[in-house]
């Protein structure tokens, strides 16, 4: 195929937002039901678990896109020579943090999937409030999840900014600046939703 690299990189950019970004928002919102009580979370999570063709949805919308995004992403991290110490501009720091959070997020997701979805799949655990409560009652895991969730929301929000440039939507410096503020709000809002649910799971408040 012609322009293979071009296609691979554009697909990487697209998958980060659709479907992975959309799934991330959905996932954090479902988690947030925990704040309204155990019953509420179990109902919401139970509904998602009861979706028809669940495994097909998971593979097509979640596993394959994340796997592709992660593998190409690690390659992208390796072909970069970061230089924010010599060129300490805001966007260069964001560029650097995008790579750092990408790696943290990959480690976090691998651990998180192993601990939850794979254990549920193996029949060792059940998907309910208690599972997350038992994981997050350990302070070490609580802080690991806090770092993981914030790293993920940052990677998504800043990636959204890059997505807008890569697809040629925000071209002018002014539109790119406004997009910085908008994606900052996305980062803060998603971080709040995610962290709020973690606090409920860990401390019941």
């Amino acid at each position, binding site marked *: 195929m*012609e*322009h*293979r*690299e*071009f*296609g691979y*990189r*554009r697909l990487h950019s697209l998958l980060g937002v659709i479907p992975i970004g959309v799934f991330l928002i959905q996932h954090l919102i479902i988690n947030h039901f925990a704040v309204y009580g155990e019953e509420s979370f179990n109902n919401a999570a139970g509904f998602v678990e009861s979706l028809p063709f669940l495994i097909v949805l998971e593979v097509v919308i979640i596993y394959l896109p994340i796997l592709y995004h992660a593998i190409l992403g690690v390659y*992208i991290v*390796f*072909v*970069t*020579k*970061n*230089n924010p*110490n*010599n*060129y300490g*501009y805001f*966007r*260069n720091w*964001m*560029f*650097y943090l*995008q790579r750092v959070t990408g790696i943290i997020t990959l480690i976090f997701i691998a651990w998180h999937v192993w601990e939850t979805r794979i254990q549920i799949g193996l029949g060792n655990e059940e998907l309910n409030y208690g599972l997350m409560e038992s994981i997050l009652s350990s302070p070490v895991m609580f802080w690991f999840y806090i770092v993981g969730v914030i790293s993920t929301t940052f990677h998504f929000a800043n990636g959204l*900014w*890059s997505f807008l*440039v*890569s*697809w*040629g*939507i*925000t*071209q*002018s*410096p002014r539109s*790119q600046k406004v997009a910085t503020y908008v994606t900052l709000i996305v980062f803060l809002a998603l971080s709040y939703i995610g962290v709020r649910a973690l606090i409920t799971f860990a401390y019941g408040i």
Partner: protein
Amino acid sequence: MAEQNTVTFIITRQDSPDSAPYKETFNVPYKKNMNVISGLMEIRKNPVNANGEKTTPVMWDMNCLEEVCGACSMVINGTARQSCAALVDQLEQPIRLEPMSTFPVVRDLIIDREQMFDALKQVKAWIPIDGTYDLGPGPRMPEKKRQWAYELSKCMTCGVCLEACPNVNDKSDFIGPAAISQARLFNAHPTGEMNKSERLEGLMEEGGITGCGNAQNCVQVCPKGIPLTTSIAAMNRATNIQSFKNFFGSDNVR
């Protein structure tokens, strides 16, 4: 301020393309309003290092001495820029000079920017008008657009944007911001526009526009103030549209 007698330069030197780099310190007599190049000229006049040892004169590249040719780019105190426009009075001392690390070193501060010219070939950054007969005058260009395009045409292929870009390095084949902006310049020209798709195809080849990771150092360091990141975003849109045309469309020569 007390009168300054000497200026100290710490220069990263390299005797040949394959030999190991080393640092050498020089103390140069201070002159009012001197720039980095006049300091290098003093070293050439009297090639004695700070230890009093006679050494080979430091080699560097230069031409216009007024920041329009791009030949004298080097890394000065950690930042890539033109040494002709780097005034000693405005620099922290000792002044550290290094060759731009993105490019192969020829000798001392002289680097080989050939990859930039290869990149211009990849994106066909010219307007093909040569032929066997007179093609006549081309379409006229609106004056406003000419003034806008003039800003993009100021690029002197100096290499500073490539040096500052974290994605231009020996592990990646990214062509860098300069050539992407040149493709935009020639695609904006009324005659150049006729070969628009050929330049976009060049940008979509290996090492092309997707090598950009939006660190946006290029636009910050460009000595000519070229809106490189705007050019990259504009070419992102144009290449995306071209790729859709190539895949879905039937008229993809334009």
